[in-house]
């Protein structure tokens, strides 16, 4: 049990170290990253299984008792997030085998991926706010280099914005941690949860809570702090974009959900109202930005922002059902969004462009690819029987039960606009006749070798299968999400496990 909690951090750590030692052997690097990511996924799955069966698990690193040492905790929500990280890591490593050029490979692409996964898993598993800051920095550092690796002009322009905004967020996070420590005298989240409830200064608590909200909000790309995302996410190779879209903003959302369900529970409901309003604005501005775009990846980048709004809606409504919906939505959106990015990469590989206007007629040439696009696209829009339908259904039912009609209306309208912009991609890329048949026709399409096709399509097929399976058999994941939500709402079990855990 204890080993399971540490493994999701240790496997990528040793993976990255070994990969650095194999700096010159690119083939060995590829094999080892595959093995490492597969190992991470297996460890994550067994952690989730153990946590689901036996309840929350905690371990004190170094044997220091709870409020003083660093605690690693896994409840169902964080274990589920670690599984998602493991899955995305494996999928992206497989996809990278066919798409990442030799230059990036020989300058540490694979070690950086492992460092990123280590940071993400650490952020999901830690039970200490300052430790969370450290993991954030680990994953940010890896993501900075991954974003800039290759040194293309667009990448440089995107990287300077991404780096600046994320460093501001980190500085705010650090300041908030400092004030909170000065106020309460502890940074262990379980200890904080107890002491903040008994705190007599609601004004100061609210101020710190909002400082955390801004810091995590920048990282999660919520309205009005999201502008760095569509300016940078489309610049690196698609494999990196897919990984970022699947994991990085979600770490911000995870931190928001964790802190605002456990630490900053505002009885008066003011923060919930604020979060709900921001959730609505995030959804609407994201999707409106997407509707105006004609670049495949930029359009999808704006949809990342829009989908973050749904996750925040669950946090804003703050009932057990809404949080369960948000957790289920998290699983759904990580898979759907990343699958769409990976499809855009395949389209770029076939036609050499991301410009929707220059694409066309792919349905005739590659009908199976068209279907692989359609499954995550319709799922993102929320069509039954795919995973997106049940995710949105759960959120909207919870919103109606809590009588938050405005946010429910916004969520439904944004679904329609999402469907519209997915249909736009469908018609532009797959259905319409190509604008210049001589240059972009099927005749001069590269014939990909079988190994490359497998590496390109296997992750997308796996994601599409899971999306359909999540929709057709929603029950097991939904009950898991409900269990996770109950643990979030009622933090007593978490606090008890952490404060009583021995080594």
């Amino acid at each position, binding site marked *: 049990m204890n080993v399971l909690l540490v493994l999701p951090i240790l496997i990528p750590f040793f993976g990255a170290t070994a990969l650095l030692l194999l700096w010159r052997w690119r083939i060995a690097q590829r094999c080892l990253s595959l093995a490492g990511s597969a190992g991470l996924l297996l460890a994550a799955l067994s952690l989730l299984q153990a946590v689901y069966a036996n309840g929350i698990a905690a371990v004190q690193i170094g044997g220091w008792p709870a409020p003083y040492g660093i605690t690693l905790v896994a409840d169902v929500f964080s274990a589920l997030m670690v599984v998602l990280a493991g899955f995305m890591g494996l999928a992206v490593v497989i996809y990278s085998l066919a798409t990442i050029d030799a230059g990036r490979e020989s300058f540490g692409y694979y070690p950086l991926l492992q460092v990123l996964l280590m940071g993400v898993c650490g952020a999901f598993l830690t039970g200490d706010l*300052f430790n969370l*800051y*450290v993991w954030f*920095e680990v994953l*940010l*550092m890896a993501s*900075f*280099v991954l974003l*800039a690796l290759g*040194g*293309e*002009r*667009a990448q*440089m*322009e*995107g*990287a*300077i*914005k991404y*780096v*600046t905004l994320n*460093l*501001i967020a*980190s*500085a*705010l996070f*650090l*300041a908030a*941690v*400092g*004030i909170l*420590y*000065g*106020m309460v005298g502890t940074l262990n989240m379980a200890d904080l949860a107890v002491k903040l409830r008994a705190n007599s200064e609601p004004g100061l608590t609210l101020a710190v809570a909002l400082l955390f909200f801004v810091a995590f909000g920048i990282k999660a790309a919520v309205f009005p702090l999201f502008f760095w995302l569509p*300016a*940078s996410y*489309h*610049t690196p190779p698609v494999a990196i974009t897919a990984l970022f879209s699947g994991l990085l903003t979600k770490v911000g959302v995870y931190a928001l959900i964790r802190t605002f369900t456990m630490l900053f529970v505002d009885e008066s409901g003011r923060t919930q109202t604020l979060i709900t309003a921001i959730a609505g604005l995030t959804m609407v501005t994201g999707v409106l930005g997407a509707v105006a775009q004609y670049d495949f990846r930029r359009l999808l980048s704006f949809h990342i922002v829009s989908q973050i709004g749904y996750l925040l809606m669950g946090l804003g409504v703050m009932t057990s059902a809404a949080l369960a919906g948000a957790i289920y939505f998290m699983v759904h959106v990580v898979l759907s969004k990343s699958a769409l990015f990976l499809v855009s990469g395949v389209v770029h590989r076939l036609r050499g462009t991301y410009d929707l206007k220059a694409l066309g007629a792919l349905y005739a040439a590659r009908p199976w690819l068209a279907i692989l696009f359609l499954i995550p696209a319709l799922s993102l829009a929320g069509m039954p029987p795919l995973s997106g339908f049940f995710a949105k259904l759960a959120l909207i039912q919870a919103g109606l039960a809590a009588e938050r009609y405005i946010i429910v209306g916004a969520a439904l309208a944004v679904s329609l606009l999402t469907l519209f912009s997915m249909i736009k991609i469908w018609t532009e890329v797959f259905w319409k006749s190509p604008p210049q048949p001589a240059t972009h026709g099927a005749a001069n399409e590269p014939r990909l070798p079988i190994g490359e096709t497998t590496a390109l399509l296997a992750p997308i097929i796996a994601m599409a299968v899971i999306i359909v399976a999540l929709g057709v058999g929603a029950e097991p994941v939904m009950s898991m999400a409900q269990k996770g939500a109950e643990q979030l709402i009622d933090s007593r079990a978490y606090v008890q496990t952490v404060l009583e855990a021995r080594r």
Partner: protein
Amino acid sequence: MEFVLALTIGVLYACGLYLMLRRSIVKLIIGLALLSNAANLLIFTAAGLTRGYPPLVALGAARPAEPFADPLPQALILTAIVIGFGVLAFAMVLAYRVYQSTGTDDLDNLKATDT
């Protein structure tokens, strides 16, 4: 003492934010450095200042005699300084690479990925 530190922190934040609002990338990075230093000082001050009582445990005692300075904020700041140093080094290299590949250090000329 708290007052002087609070004033310093405020000035550091103000200067950092002002520099970040300028168009030059070099000023942006100096601003980032000031901002992270301001955050470090903020931890130091907010956690409470105790002067002249180092948290040393006497031989044979289980805990230091009261009052003693809280050592944890300094450990936090030390970690944050190391992280800030690494991040700053990366940001400076990035700025240099941006200048190399775009030929400008004016942020207003770096709008190609925005639209």
